[in-house]
């Protein structure tokens, strides 16, 4: 079952624009390795779920997968063969708004080679270019 919010204040949302780069959620925080978005995009709940399934099948019960994004935004669409007008369509799917630099997924409890393979499989399910990143330690 794809992810979606349990409760919302408004069912339908405006499209908006994806401006700028990620200033939050752009560092590996929970695992040791992560998958970072290089482009702005909407990532649908189905794509996140496909990524989760691909990664958890690969990892089996070895490591731990962290999903760092959540589909908060509803996207509406009109049914086929319906004339324009008569108001906004019904919510069709949910998506996460992702800016360049956002860490999408993280993996922990496995070695680097396994994490690389796992996140490469996961990256195939994403609609944008991604890169593999390590956790960076603070020197301050």
């Amino acid at each position, binding site marked *: 079952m794809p992810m979606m919010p*349990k*409760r919302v204040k408004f069912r339908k949302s405006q499209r908006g624009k994806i401006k700028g780069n990620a200033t939050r959620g752009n560092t590996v925080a929970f695992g040791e390795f992560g998958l970072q978005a290089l482009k702005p995009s909407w990532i649908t709940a189905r794509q996140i779920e496909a990524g989760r399934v691909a990664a958890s099948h690969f990892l089996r*019960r070895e490591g731990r997968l962290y999903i760092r994004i959540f589909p908060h935004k509803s996207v509406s669409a009109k049914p086929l063969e319906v004339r324009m007008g008569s108001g906004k369509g019904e919510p069709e799917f949910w998506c996460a708004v992702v800016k360049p630099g956002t860490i999408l997924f993280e993996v922990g409890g496995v070695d680097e080679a396994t994490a690389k393979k796992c996140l490469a499989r996961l990256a195939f399910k994403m609609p944008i270019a991604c890169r593999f990143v390590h956790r960076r*330690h603070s*020197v301050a």
Partner: protein
Amino acid sequence: MSQTAQVTAKSRSELGSRANKRLRDAGMIPGVIYGHKEAVVPVTLPRRDVANHIDRGSHLFDLNIDGKSEKVLVKEVQYDHLGIEILHIDFARVNLDEKVEITVPLELKGTPKGEADGGVLTQLISELHIECLVTDIPDIIRHSIAEMKLNDILHIKELKLPTGVKVLQDEDLVVATVKEIEEETEAGAEGEAEPAVIGEVKDGTAAVAAEKK
């Protein structure tokens, strides 16, 4: 113990984002030195040298600023949105006989015994906030976890620290656990097809509630 990195820096007179962008385009990093109740000095450093030292985990720098040597400690490093390029660096003046608070990486060595029984190691703390002399700053703190069994928990108080190092965090904090990962239940995950709307009451009861008011 971490080594002192030698870097040549220049003091900079041009301030502001445009001047800093020009510096970055020329392969330099803007930085600033402060502390010890002396004047704040904006500096320029060669990016490649600084990035190499920072990537190796150097904390202590010996900056040669216009012919004058100064011992400084890295206080903050700002990266771009992808975490690749260093944008700015803060240094604090320091004496070698001074005690400082600093963050060092914590590495867990070995494979826990519990992994053979189906356990997965989860490291919850990967950096330690410590206090020590400037000359005693460790590059990394390593701890062996080979003896950890299934359902074992490692706390900060159980870590073996180098001499002269004091941890500033709560000693009961959990560093790592070896636990079995619960299987995600795919069946039964079918929830509601649509989220509930806050403030909306179903089946016309909203109207009734409004009338009563």
